[in-house]
């Protein structure tokens, strides 16, 4: 009877809180790392190189940078959070400021 009520939407589905939820979460994590197939060293190098490129254009607050692997809908994503400050005092902007 509970099943029927559930199907009619009269009972709240208890499903979301059970151990299946942790199975889903853990699988997503494990599969993201399996699928990207990069060693921690390679991941580290990738992050450094990405930051280098961004730093050429803006000033990056490098201690607050965060890289994560995420699964959204059907996509595997590398999500980078890179806080930057307005001022860029590198050589690239010198010309514009003086010109």
């Amino acid at each position, binding site marked *: *009877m509970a099943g029927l009520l559930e199907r009619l939407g009269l009972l709240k*589905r208890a*499903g979301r809180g*059970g151990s299946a*939820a942790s*199975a889903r979460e853990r*699988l*997503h994590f494990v*599969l993201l790392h*399996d699928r990207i197939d990069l060693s921690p060293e390679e991941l580290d190098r990738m992050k450094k190189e990405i930051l280098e490129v961004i730093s050429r254009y803006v000033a990056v607050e490098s201690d607050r940078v965060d890289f994560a692997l995420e699964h959204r809908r059907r996509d595997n994503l590398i999500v980078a959070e890179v806080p930057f400050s307005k001022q860029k005092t590198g050589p690239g902007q010198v010309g514009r400021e003086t010109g």
Partner: protein
Amino acid sequence: MGGKIVTITSGKGGVGKTTATANIGVALAQLGKRVVLIDADIGLRNLDVVMGLENRIVYNLVDVAEGRCKLRQAMIKHKLLPDLHLIPASQTRDKSAVSQSDMIQVSDWLRPEVDFVLIDSPAGIERGFRNAIAPADEVLIVTNPEVSAVRDADRIIGLLEAAGKGPGKLVLNRIRQDMVQKGEMLSADDVTDILAIKMIGIVPEDQFVVPASNKGVPVVLNEESRAGLAYHNIARRLNGENVPFLPLEEEDGFLRRLTRLFSGGNQLLKQG
């Protein structure tokens, strides 16, 4: 082009590859198809006992590969279904006794003679697996709703794609609808969402499966068995029919609960 070569694999061991191969094979034969099952698990042969044909083996796949017998001589006819044959694995050799080109050669010989060749792959991702998928036109990946099995299935899907055999179709084995409803088991939707491939069958956990393998009579021959019905549906889908999934599953869950309600009531009456 002739028959279709279908390899059944999983990555992880013990998820039901051999049971699936046996049952889908029997079900296809019941549909009137000419079927040959090949046990590609050299050194750990099992399909013969699941099929109840272990006492009829003379020659095996390695004998064919090494030219000690004709293909026909290694094909064991099923007791009830004359169009269903098994080519057993060797029990005394290892995976290196057969090559990918052997598997392709055997499959090419069979293609014009049959409608389906089902190859039971060994577990793992090494040579035995490579041999088993080499001749495949289609690959079925068996998994169950557990983290380890789903992870291994994902790895297999990746390897199939890299080998140009992907992505394959999924057989989700040993689902318990009551546990799914309580949120204590991954659902079919969860698994398809995570693996992002097509499902070809959902096989419920079923009390008739173990007795069937005890007796060497695949459960698909038991008309009471829900797992048997699920395998029958997989065979029909492999054969190109469009068989819906949901009504079967849900109706059954509800019917079972009703039956339990009534049998509980009877007991009360007896006691009273």
